[in-house]
């Protein structure tokens, strides 16, 4: 039995939540579906840990779906990079689900809760599928599974605020455009090479050399994935979707959805197209680099002027994605390490902060910053978690945010791009402003008359503080994450040095 499970781990990683989703819908109302989802997610997380442990030394696990030979059939391929991302996704889900129970009970009517958890499990299955598969078209399929589930999850915020419906619709249109662009890009690559397997694509593209079709394919994929990961001018769906989605969904999406999209980008840029592809290097440096820098500043400045805490954090996410993309454009191993380590670091930080916003909503009934006066006295633990998360967002030493920025600045200085390094630090100062605004209101302003606010329940505080704890633990003791990220980066670097033929 164990041997059977072990042989099929890559398939089970996706199949387990996928099978659990319809069962969850059939199980019926309330606590049962939640408890079932929790057990399934715990098992999924255990599989991710097992895969991470198996690939940590550098082995690549390859799994043939349906037993078909590899370039023809669908391959599931786990290496250091996607094992790391799998761990982020299933780990966040494991912590968000226990947190979700109370806040979901407050935000979603009881008869809809089983369907909510069903969509949640489907979303997880989709994100894990995107990450684990080694087949370009399969990525598209899972992208659709996770996106469709996400649209439903965002729309389920409409029981609290009807604007969730327009936010979800907006996201639906933008997300569909993104997925379409992606699949057009994949179609172009298929036209050139006749294969959809990522590893096979890499070899055949290198043999084929540059052509205008390849360039078109690259641009379509860049823009399609750019929409999904909210690259700066394509981010318009994100603030509303995050602000009006149910709080547990926001915390989960902020930690995982954009991260899976960044992973797809990394995979295509560096495994499929390769570092040596000049058109890509030019595009990254001439187009993506300025956009990333603009995102760091523009989104942070917009965040300063938001009143809704969730919207503020959403804009801050766009800025943070700017840092991740900036790391990519350096095209060096240190830059990639910075990007990959920031995937993890931003996931834990932002999940903690959005969970705090959820706690505020549960107790105070609002997350409008102007109405949170004096909340630091009524909800000391929750607010302290916000402060710690905020420190990490700013990038103070002893938090994970510092580690990411350290590597980013290091990568910029390595190339001698000191203006970029200065801009990274300058944009951190903007984070100080928007974090301070909340801290000031929470601690230094008097509470509005006649408000009764209790500390958030333990079932929500504990997951929040685990995320905060992780963001401090890995900030002090950064060896594990930065070694894992460094190894993932070097694996990408090595895999893409296939010589280009002119």
């Amino acid at each position: 039995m164990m041997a059977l499970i072990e042989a099929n781990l890559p398939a089970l990683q996706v199949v387990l939540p996928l099978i659990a989703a319809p069962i969850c819908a059939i199980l019926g109302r309330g606590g049962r579906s939640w408890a079932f989802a929790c057990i399934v997610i715990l098992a999924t997380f255990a599989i991710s840990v097992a895969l991470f442990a198996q690939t940590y030394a550098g082995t690549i696990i390859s799994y043939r779906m349906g037993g078909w030979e590899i370039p023809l059939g669908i391959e599931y391929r786990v290496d250091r990079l996607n094992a790391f991302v799998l761990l982020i996704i299933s780990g966040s889900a494991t912590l968000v689900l226990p947190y979700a129970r109370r806040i979901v009970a407050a935000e979603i009517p009881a008869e809809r809760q089983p369907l909510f958890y069903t969509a949640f499990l489907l979303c997880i299955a989709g994100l894990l599928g995107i990450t684990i598969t080694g087949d370009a078209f399969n990525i598209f399929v899972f992208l659709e599974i996770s996106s469709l589930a996400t649209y439903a999850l965002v729309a389920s915020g409409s029981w609290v605020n009807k604007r969730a419906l327009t936010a979800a619709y907006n996201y639906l249109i933008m997300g569909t455009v993104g997925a379409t662009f992606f699949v057009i890009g994949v179609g172009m690559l298929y036209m050139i090479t006749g294969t959809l397997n990522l590893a096979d694509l890499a070899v055949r593209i290198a043999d084929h050399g540059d052509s205008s079709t390849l360039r078109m394919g690259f641009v379509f994929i860049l823009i399609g994935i750019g929409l999904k990961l909210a690259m700066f001018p394509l981010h318009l769906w994100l603030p509303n979707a995050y602000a009006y989605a149910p709080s547990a969904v926001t915390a989960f999406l902020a930690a995982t959805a954009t991260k899976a999209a960044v992973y797809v980008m990394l995979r295509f840029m560096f495994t499929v197209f390769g570092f040596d592809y000049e058109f890509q290097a030019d595009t990254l440096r001439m187009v993506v680099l300025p956009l990333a820098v603009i995102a760091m500043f523009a989104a942070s400045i917009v965040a300063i002027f938001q009143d809704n805490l969730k919207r503020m954090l959403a804009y801050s996410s766009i800025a943070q994605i700017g840092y991740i993309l900036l790391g990519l454009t350096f095209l060096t191993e240190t830059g990639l390490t910075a990007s990959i380590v920031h995937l993890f670091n931003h996931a834990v930080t932002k999940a903690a902060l959005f969970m705090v916003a959820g706690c505020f909503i549960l107790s105070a009934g609002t997350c409008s910053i102007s109405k949170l006066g004096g909340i630091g006295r009524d909800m000391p633990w929750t607010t302290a978690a916000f402060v710690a998360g905020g420190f990490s967002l700013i990038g103070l030493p002893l938090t994970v945010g510092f580690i990411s920025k350290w590597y980013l600045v290091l990568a910029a200085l390595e190339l001698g791009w000191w203006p970029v390094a200065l801009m990274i630090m300058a944009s951190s100062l903007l984070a100080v402003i928007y974090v301070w605004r909340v801290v000031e209101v929470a601690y230094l302003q008097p509470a509005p008359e006649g408000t009764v606010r209790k500390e958030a329940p333990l079932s929500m505080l504990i997951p929040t503080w685990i995320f905060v704890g992780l963001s401090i633990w890995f900030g002090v003791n950064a060896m594990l994450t930065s070694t894992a990220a460094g190894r993932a980066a070097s694996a990408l670097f090595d895999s893409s040095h296939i010589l280009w033929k002119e």
Partner: protein
Amino acid sequence: MEHHSILRVVSKLLIPPMLVYALYVQFHGEYSPGGGFQAGVVFAAAFVLYSLVHGIDALTRVAPPRVLHALAGLGVLIFAGTGVVTMALGDAYLGYYALAEHPQHAQEWGIVVVEFGVGMTVASVMLSLFIAFASHTRKLDDKDW
């Protein structure tokens, strides 16, 4: 609805062949054009036609939304469960060769079972969508036709 005899007769003539045709498309999917998706759509279309003539309440009596949701889930479980069975028999996920001695039969059975799941899910999701939209509008009085 009794006096709309043309609608009644035409729907009565059409619905049985539609159901049979859906089943034909379903079970010939593995070696002729068609399969679960198309069959599910045709099958659901028969029910939609029935409800267009006899009203949405008549449809929800035959196929209550709760049952449809469960059937949609069950279809996915049939598909995914086939994969689990082949895994338990020692092949890869959805590796049909484990299902029978003869490789051709094994593939055929695998596809038939999986497509049955697809058809079931597609038909019930189609009907759920139709019911969701049709139940939203106000009830049309018979004289308003």
